[in-house]
């Protein structure tokens, strides 16, 4: 989780990623963020986020992202 938060902080140093649960709904993340984020998650956690997982529910909070990573890691 720490590593994920670091990746997120790098994208937007001014956002409180620990607590924000509306990253998509409030337009905090945009499409370039999603592209960078998926690439970095793939690299850092040695997973391959498939297109089906790239949905708003998985990107609205750090917690949701973390749960997705865990899920992908189990496969």
């Amino acid at each position, binding site marked *: 989780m720490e590593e994920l938060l670091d990746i997120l902080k790098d994208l937007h140093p*001014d956002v409180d990623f620990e607590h924000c649960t509306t990253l998509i709904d409030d337009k905090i993340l945009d*499409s370039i963020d999603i592209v*960078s984020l998926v690439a970095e998650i793939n690299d850092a956690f040695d997973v391959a986020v498939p297109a089906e997982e*790239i949905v708003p529910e998985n990107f609205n909070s750090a917690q949701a992202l973390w749960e997705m990573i865990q899920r992908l890691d189990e496969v």
Partner: protein
Amino acid sequence: MQRNVLEYLEATAPRLPDKVAFSNGTDSLTFGQLSRSARGIGTWLAGQGLSHEPVVVFMEKHPHSIAAFFGVVYSGCFYVPIDEEMPAYRVELIFQTLKPRAVLCDEKTRSQVEAMGYDGILCNYEAAAATEPDDGVLAAIRAAQLDTDPLYIVFTSGSTGVPKGVVACHRSVIDYIEQLSATLGFSEETVFGNQTPLYFDACLKELYPTLKFGATTYLIPKSLFMFPIKLVDYLNEHKINTVCWVVSALTMISGFRVLEKQVPEYLHTIAFGSEVFPIRQFQLWRKALPNAKFTNLYGPTEATGMSCFYHVDRDFEADEVIPIGQPFPNTGILLLTEDNKLAAPGELGEICIKGTCLTMGYYRMPEKTAECFVQNPLNDAYPELIYRTGDLGRYNERGELVFVSRKDFQIKHMGHRIELQEIEVVAAMHPEVAQACATYDKEKDKIHLYYTGGAESGELSAFLKEKLPRYMLPNRMERLERMPLTPNGKVDRKALAAK
């Protein structure tokens, strides 16, 4: 001879009154409704005594904002679209240049305009559109209009920190729409999926051919460009067959390997531009849609949309670049070397454009206009303007024009044209930033900002968000103890870019 873009609408609306012209998937305007609303707005604006002046359309991206554009044109004024997500600071800069006497807004944006302390005429779309059209008034306005009257102003990044307003007239837009439509083969059957924002010239590609042919345009919600499967679903649901997108929107789909699972099955015409298309991504598209027509477009805002096209007719190796091809008919390209001679085949030169496509220059910026719109140096016999794009290109061995690089620090990032110095100027406004330098990593399509001074990156990031549009925000920021300098004391951009 056609003199006004509204003639497109006036030919189509009586023929196809109930066909949907513009839709976002939820709300739609038919050609009949579009015509009625636009004439209502035109009548209302004319009633306010407005004529031959900029009217700001400060609205959410919606079919209504398009009706507002045409309403402004009916009044004999020219429209200036403003992005509702643009930071107030930037909107204020634009208002200082325009000094607009009237602004059209919607429920959502009204408070934003009021918060700026704007004291001119402010009217909600709904109220203006509900006005009973006065055909006599509108006909009198039209009779007095010239095809050289301005149609719109769109604002683009300026290196001094002040955005530049590019003014285009009816004639250059009509010329562009005619040439583009013939080149891409638009028709009444065309269903456009619009991706680009309405506050740039890029949306001309959908707006005016829709009027001309009685086609339909879907304004695709911006949020879908984050979620590729939903995006392809949307394209299929609305049977979208034609897209003119920036490359990064197309690679969003191919890059996440969506095309292996799901193909936009109605798509047969794909135009792209503003950026280099990575060949591997391009091949994924061609493989998924082997029968579709792919066209690379190139052109600066100052020459009204696009100036050159290349229909992809062969395969490319991973290290090759897709050419920008040849100019549209009735557009002239001069490739000029540094000493203002025509570049020899294969030689590098600045791409310069001439013809009806040239816009009228930058609004209230005569010096800047005179710098870029200049007398053709190859012609000393009569006045003939060319626009110096600042883009460097060359002809390949097949005689196709190829874009090579920029002369200055202008970049294309996610399809947006940005002057890196504008980011630096704004960053340096922060009280605790001493020096700032922005660089662009082309390979990763990322903007990096290096700065000196005491500001925390979080603070600076929040500061920039208040002043710059989203697409200009640096993707990475780094504080340095000191800026690397070249031997003659300038910031060493190369050293920073290599970091």
